[in-house]
C-alpha cells in the first residue's frame, strides 16, 4: 500500500465543506417546496377532466419518472442553452431536481388523495363547511398522514440529488466544493470520505427530525 493519508488537509477544509453542506440543504429544501407545489398541481391536473391539463401533467410525470435525474439536469443546462435560454449551473440543478420531485410527488399525492374516502368530503360539506374549509380541516390532515413518509423519502432523495450539480459545473454545494478541493490536491479519498460523513449526518438529521415531527403531528 503506497498511499499515505493526509487527513490534516481534509480537516482544514472542513469549514468550506460545511458551507457547501448548507447550500446543499438550502437547495434541497427549495426544490422540495417547488416540487410539492407543482406536485399537488400535477396530481389535480391528472384527475381533472380537461384533456390538455391531463396530457401535460402525464407527460411531465412520465418523463420525470422514466429518465435519470442527471439527464434532466443536463437537458436543462445544455438543451435549453441551445435554444438561447441561458441557465447557470445552480438554477439548472434546482430546476432539474424540482422537475424530478414534482413528477414523483404527483404520484404520491394522487395516491394520497385516493386514500381519503370521498365520503369524508361529503360528510364535511353536509355539516355546513365550505369546500376549502372541508379540504383544510378534514381532508388535508388525513392526506398529510398518508403522504408524510413518502415526502420524507423524497426530501432525502433531493438532498442526495444535489450532488449531481458537480456534473454541470456547480462548485458551491457540498460535492462541488469537495470536487474543487480534489482537483487541486488529488486527495480524493480523504475529501470524499469526509463529504460522505457529512451527507450521512445530514440525512440522519432529516429522518430523525421527520420522525419527531410525525410523532407530534400524528398523535391520534
Amino acid at each position: 500500500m503506497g498511499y499515505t493519508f493526509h487527513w490534516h488537509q481534509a480537516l482544514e477544509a472542513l469549514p468550506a465543506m460545511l458551507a457547501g453542506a448548507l447550500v446543499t440543504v438550502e437547495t434541497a429544501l427549495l426544490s422540495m417546496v417547488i416540487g410539492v407545489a407543482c406536485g399537488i398541481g400535477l396530481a389535480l391536473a391528472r384527475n381533472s377532466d380537461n384533456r390538455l391539463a391531463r396530457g401535460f401533467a402525464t407527460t411531465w410525470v412520465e418523463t420525470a419518472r422514466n429518465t435519470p435525474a442527471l439527464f434532466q439536469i443536463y437537458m436543462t443546462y445544455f438543451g435549453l442553452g441551445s435554444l438561447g435560454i441561458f441557465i447557470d449551473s445552480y438554477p439548472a440543478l434546482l430546476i432539474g431536481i424540482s422537475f424530478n420531485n414534482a413528477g414523483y410527488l404527483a404520484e404520491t399525492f394522487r395516491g394520497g388523495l385516493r386514500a381519503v374516502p370521498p365520503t369524508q368530503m361529503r360528510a364535511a360539506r353536509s355539516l355546513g363547511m365550505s369546500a376549502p374549509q372541508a379540504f383544510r380541516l378534514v381532508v388535508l390532515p388525513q392526506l398529510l398522514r398518508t403522504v408524510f413518509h413518502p415526502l420524507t423519502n423524497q426530501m432525502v432523495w433531493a438532498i442526495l440529488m444535489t450532488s449531481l450539480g458537480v456534473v454541470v459545473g456547480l462548485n458551491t454545494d457540498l460535492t462541488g466544493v469537495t470536487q474543487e478541493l480534489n482537483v487541486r490536491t488529488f486527495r480524493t479519498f480523504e475529501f470524499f470520505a469526509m463529504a460522505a460523513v457529512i451527507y450521512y449526518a445530514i440525512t440522519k438529521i432529516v429522518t430523525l427530525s421527520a420522525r419527531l415531527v410525525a410523532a407530534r403531528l400524528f398523535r391520534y
Partner: protein
Amino acid sequence: MIETDFSTTDLLFMLKGAGMTLTLTFWAMLGGTLLGLILGVLRAVSPWWINAALGAVLDVFRSIPLLIQFILANSIKSIIGLQVSAFEVACVMLALYTSAYCTEIVRAGVLAVPATTRRAGRSLGLTYWQDMRHIVFPIALRVSLPSWTGLTLGVLKDTSLVLWIGIVELLRASQVIVTRIQEPLLVLAICGLIYFLISFPISRLGAYLETRWREYD
C-alpha cells in the same frame, strides 16, 4: 429535412451505450436481489440487535449520494491496489446499493405475511423451511414485486452516474456526440427517448402485475 450532423453511426454509438446501461442494470439487480433476499429474510427473522446492526450498515448506502459512493469505491480500490476494472467497481457498488433497498423490500414482504397464516401452516405439520417456501414466499413475492420493479427502474436510471468513473453508458455516449456536433437539444432528446423506451415497458409491466395480482385479494 432537418439539417443535422447526427448520423446512424452516432445512433449506433448511443445504442452501444444503452447496451452498457442495460448490462450494468442486469448485474446490479442480480447481485443486489440475491443479497437483498438473504439479508431481507435475515432482518425479518433475526433478534433486534442483529436487525439494528444490519439496518445501520445498509442505511449508509442509502444516505450517501451514489456518485460519492462510486468515487470512494474507485479511490479505495486503487489505495489497496486491487486490479479490477471500473466496470467491475460499478457493478459491485450498484449491487450493494440495490441490496440496501432490496433488503427493505424483502423484509416488508416477509413481514406482510400474516403470522396467523404461518402458524396455521406450522400447526398442519409443515417444517420451518417448508413454511418459508410454500407460504411465505408466494405471498411475499406478490407484495414486493411492484416495489421491486420500481427499484429496477431506479437502478436503470442510476447507471447514468457511472459516467463519472469513466464508463461509457448512454448519457456519456450522448455527451461525446454533443461535444462533437454541438447539437445538444437533438442528441439529448434522442437520449431521453431511449431511456423512456427502455423504462416505460418495465413500469407498465409492474403496474400490470400489480393490478392483476390485486384481483385475488
